[in-house]
């Protein structure tokens, strides 16, 4: 049996194609059933997220399965076959195992280390389990991929550092303040990025939220959304004395906060530290303010700079993660090949038992006069002869050796165990 991954992701297919091939809602329900019913396929799991569509399979013949799945895509999503040519990738056997481990550990993600993919993978697995489209191989593989992902998360720092501007701002705030839950946060202005950063700050538990907007009504609406307090824009400098964290994003073409003003604010604050985040372009806060003691001013480039270093660090950690995955792939390989020997061991024992039964019957029919005691003794002897005979080959099969495949073939041949399809077991 062979493990196969057929799929496409953000690296091989553009958004348009990914959207077309997404399995959502009813499509997933129908898709997984139809794929499972293809004659080439034994087990299947479908993972469909906005960055990837992947199908995990157990098949007998890789090439046939690939063609069958391609045909299925063309039919199911009504697209041209050519569109798939460059987008689809195919991994089989250990390559496939490695790929699934890398996906679950978020090494294959657009943002390396992002945590969502593991949850999405778990959901996909559960969905397949409920529909009974998986079997011994994919069950084991998917469970393993979840535990590998957890191992990577705890043993490397792959998910530790912020890789988005708004998270970077929160991370910095936590290195300036010991406890955000006693801090006051002020949002000056509005804008998509500013609001996102504000949301992250608020999710991290700041105590009070002050919103200042040039249009007071907009401010009030935002205040409602964030459960904060709206103030008039012109009052913000007075209020700044109470705010520990400020995110500033106004459309102003010049500085709205000058060094002299900030000096006054700091006096009023008794020098309690303040974290200013200026994500407006052009900048709204006089950069000279960063020279003041206990004032930490970051503009959008500074934040981007920290994000860049974090991304570099994640890449370093990703290399460590790959080493872990390599070891796990090895372990999985061993398990897989031990699985190969199971049917042969069973067949060998069955064959021996059959011979024993047949010969005993023959003998006992010819000797009707013997008593129970003698009968038992003969049966016992027959049992120990077959046990001793199949003991050595069984041990040899179970041994974890390089030439296990040859061993299986030889034993099948020697004992005449052919004709059975392992996959059906």
């Amino acid at each position, binding site marked *: 049996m062979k493990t196969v991954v057929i799929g496409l992701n953000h690296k091989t297919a553009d958004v348009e194609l990914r959207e077309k091939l997404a399995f959502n809602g009813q499509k997933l329900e129908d898709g997984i059933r139809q794929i499972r019913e293809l004659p080439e396929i034994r087990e299947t799991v479908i993972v469909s997220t906005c960055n990837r569509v992947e199908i995990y399979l157990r098949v007998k013949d890789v090439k046939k399965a690939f063609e069958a799945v391609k045909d299925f895509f063309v039919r199911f999503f009504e697209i041209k076959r050519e569109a798939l040519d460059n987008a689809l990738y195919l991994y089989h056997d250990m390559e496939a195992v490695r790929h699934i481990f890398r996906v679950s550990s978020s090494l294959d993600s657009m943002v390396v280390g992002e945590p969502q993919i593991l949850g999405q993978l778990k959901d996909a697995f559960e969905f397949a389990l409920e529909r009974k489209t998986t079997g011994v191989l994919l069950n084991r593989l998917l469970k393993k991929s979840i535990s590998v992902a957890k191992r990577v998360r705890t043993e490397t720092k792959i998910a530790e550092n912020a890789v988005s501007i708004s998270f970077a701002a929160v991370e910095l705030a936590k*290195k300036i*303040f*010991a*406890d955000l839950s006693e801090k006051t946060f002020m949002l000056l202005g509005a804008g998509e990025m500013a609001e996102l950063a504000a949301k992250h700050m608020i999710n991290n538990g700041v105590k009070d939220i002050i919103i200042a907007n040039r249009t007071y009504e907009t401010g009030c609406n935002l205040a409602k959304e964030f459960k904060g307090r709206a103030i008039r824009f012109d009052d913000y400098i007075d209020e700044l004395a109470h705010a520990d964290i400020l995110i500033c994003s106004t459309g102003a073409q010049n500085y709205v906060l000058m060094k002299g003003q900030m000096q006054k604010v700091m006096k009023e*604050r008794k020098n*309690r*530290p303040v974290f200013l985040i200026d994500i407006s372009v052009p900048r709204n806060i006089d950069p000279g303010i960063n020279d003041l003691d206990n004032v*930490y001013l970051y503009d959008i480039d500074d934040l981007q*700079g920290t994000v860049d*270093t974090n991304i570099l660090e994640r890449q370093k950690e990703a290399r460590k993660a790959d080493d872990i995955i390599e070891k796990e792939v090895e372990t999985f390989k061993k398990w897989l090949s031990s699985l190969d020997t199971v049917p042969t061991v069973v067949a060998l024992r069955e064959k021996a038992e059959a011979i024993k039964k047949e010969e005993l019957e023959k003998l006992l029919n010819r000797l009707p006069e013997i008593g129970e005691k003698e009968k038992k003794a003969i049966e016992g002897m027959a049992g120990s002869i077959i046990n001793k005979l199949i003991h050595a080959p069984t041990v040899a099969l179970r041994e974890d050796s390089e030439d296990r495949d040859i061993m299986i073939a030889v034993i099948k041949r020697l004992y005449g165990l052919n004709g059975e399809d392992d996959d059906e077991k």
Partner: protein
Amino acid sequence: MEVILFELALTFYFAATIVCVLELFKGTSTTSRIMFSLVVIGFALHTANIIARYVLSGHIPIANLHEASSFFAWCIVLLFFYLEYRYKPGLLGSFIMPVVFVLMLSSSMLPRKIEPLSPVLQSCWLGIHTVLAFIGDAAFAMAFGIGIMYLIQEHYVKSKHIRGLFRKLPSLQMLDDINYRLITIGFPFLTLAIITGALWAESAWGSYWRWDPKEVWSLITWFIYASVLHVRLTAGWRGKRAAILSVIGFCAVLFTFFGVNLLGKGLHLF
């Protein structure tokens, strides 16, 4: 016996210091646990050593420079446990254990003989005065380590170089809080040490204050820390300035402790 205890304690502190320095470069939760256990074992041996010396000599073992350095280090480790328990600041050990080790090492190189106390020192004040002084000094030593940590972290945040120790060091606010807390511990102890010292001087020599170098330097130290607290409360000198002042203050402490003994002449010479 007490010699073996001392050497063992020194060895464990040494091992802990090595682990602490390693932690700066390649720290995991395992290295911090190893470091902490090493310090705990070292501290237990150290405590046993101090008790053994007390039993042998019959007085509190702070009568010569060897014993004083050793006791100083002991107080610092005690405070280290307190801070670890109360705040759990990352990397504190890396900044404190080297200080402990240097104190213990210098202690190990000083004459260790237990000699009978000179008559002047035979007083209940010996224990009270010296213990107060050393607890105060230990708090200042700690504030020094924390101050250095603050200055490093502040540099990272201010210069926007988010790398190196930035992630492992605690937040600026926590460091500043601990620094302030330590000085509010150290200052009353120093004050009491000076007062008990004056009382002792009165009973031993008949005058409260004799402008002995140690007394003068203690007073200078006292003024430095008094001003640290004063400007913090009145002018809001917190953060960086408070950290710098606590570094300067500790230099005065060190000079009072070693400098005066080694260079000067006076009543406090051991």
